[in-house]
């Protein structure tokens, strides 16, 4: 059973991973001292530690707290919120608000990432344009959720960063890459004014900035990875 405080905290991640980013932001928000280990080639050559601590999925991120490990990024974020219950809280306190936050986080992991991956993997321009429509629908839904949830603040969480911001933050990098490669602006002041401003504020947040590569770095990385 995990205990707080002096137990060693280690995060296994990989550069540019939108999922590892979520864990890093959560740990930073809670001021949890931890050791970060980079899985250098997580697709082709997984470390023994990764396979041992995440035998089911063998994916990053994995949070190792003392002698237990926690897998799946949104699960890690909730765990960090609960294991280090001091403020700031990541999830809201009212059940209705928590359900709203979980719903949109799930939506990002499901429909959003699916449509981003589909656009990124499209065979040709015609296919890409068709798939782009799905992605636009997702972002329109997110924009509405943002307007409702932010209540005039900078974030989905209102004045402060919260669970949906952290979940959604994962799409900022991948979106900027497909925007650069396709020439299509998925986040725009006309269609998604709230999200455009939110993305800037998120990137600049002190719990995010140290961990999130900038747009140019993401694009370089994608070029190398996909041989463009």
């Amino acid at each position, binding site marked *: 059973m995990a205990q707080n405080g002096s137990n060693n905290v280690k995060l296994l991640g990989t550069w540019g991973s939108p999922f590892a980013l979520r864990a890093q932001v959560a740990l930073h928000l809670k001021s949890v001292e931890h050791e970060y280990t980079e899985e250098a080639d997580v697709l082709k050559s997984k470390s023994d530690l990764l396979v041992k601590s995440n035998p089911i999925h063998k994916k990053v991120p994995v949070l190792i707290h003392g002698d237990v490990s926690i*897998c799946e990024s949104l699960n890690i974020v909730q*765990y960090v919120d609960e294991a280090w219950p001091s403020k700031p809280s990541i999830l809201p306190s009212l059940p209705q608000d928590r359900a709203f936050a*979980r*719903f949109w986080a799930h939506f990002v992991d499901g429909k959003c990432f699916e449509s981003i991956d589909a656009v990124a993997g499209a065979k040709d321009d015609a296919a890409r344009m068709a798939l782009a429509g799905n992605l636009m629908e997702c972002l329109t839904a997110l924009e509405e959720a943002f307007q409702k949830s932010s209540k005039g603040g900078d974030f989905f969480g209102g004045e402060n960063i919260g669970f949906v911001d952290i979940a959604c933050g994962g799409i900022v990098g991948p979106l900027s890459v497909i925007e650069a490669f396709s020439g299509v602006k998925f986040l725009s002041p006309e269609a998604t004014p709230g999200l455009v401003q939110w993305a800037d504020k998120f990137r600049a947040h002190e719990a995010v900035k140290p961990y999130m590569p900038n747009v140019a770095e993401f694009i370089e990385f994608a070029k190398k990875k996909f041989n463009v």
Partner: protein
Amino acid sequence: MANEVILLDFWPSMFGMRTRIALREKGVEFEYREEDLRNKSPLLLQMNPIHKKIPVLIHNGKPVCESSIQVQYIDEVWSHKNPILPSDPYQRAQARFWADFIDKKVYDVSRKTWTTKGEELEAAKKELIEILKTLESELGDKPYFGGDEFGYVDIALIGFYTWFPAYEKFGNLSIESECPKLMVWVKKCLERETVAKSLPDPHKVTEFVAELRKRFGLE
């Protein structure tokens, strides 16, 4: 204000079953409304515009969508009895992990046992048994997934049991012989009134799947 709880659901849905069980575990009075999925009600479309799926829990007029989220919501609102999630953060993370595993793996693969043929079917059967064996191994010698108490992961999985005979009939496999410990767990869960009341007769589910197969031209 009196609690008004409505559940928009579809009787064979293993996801709807989760919410039914959770509500009964907490002793919550609710109005069950059957949806015709080929003719969705305006209320369903209004309350779940993004996914347009059941189950939808409507509590005092406000919707909660997605069965796992509904179960957590029910646990938090009616926190006075029968806790569904454990209180320790690590145990909670484990519960969420396994419910998520069930969500990601069981439905899609099991569906193939009655919608595919030939090599695709054989691959799906193999994968389903592996998934169920993984769950069986996680259960170990415990009475329930969370230990001594019935909880979140049990609720996430038990509804699928009503579809097992359909997977077995149309996929030509035997879950009982491959995963006997899992079937012991099933029997234990069925002893619970909240579960027995919330699950349909598996024979009826198999008849329903046979109809679906005819409708999809699979027969």
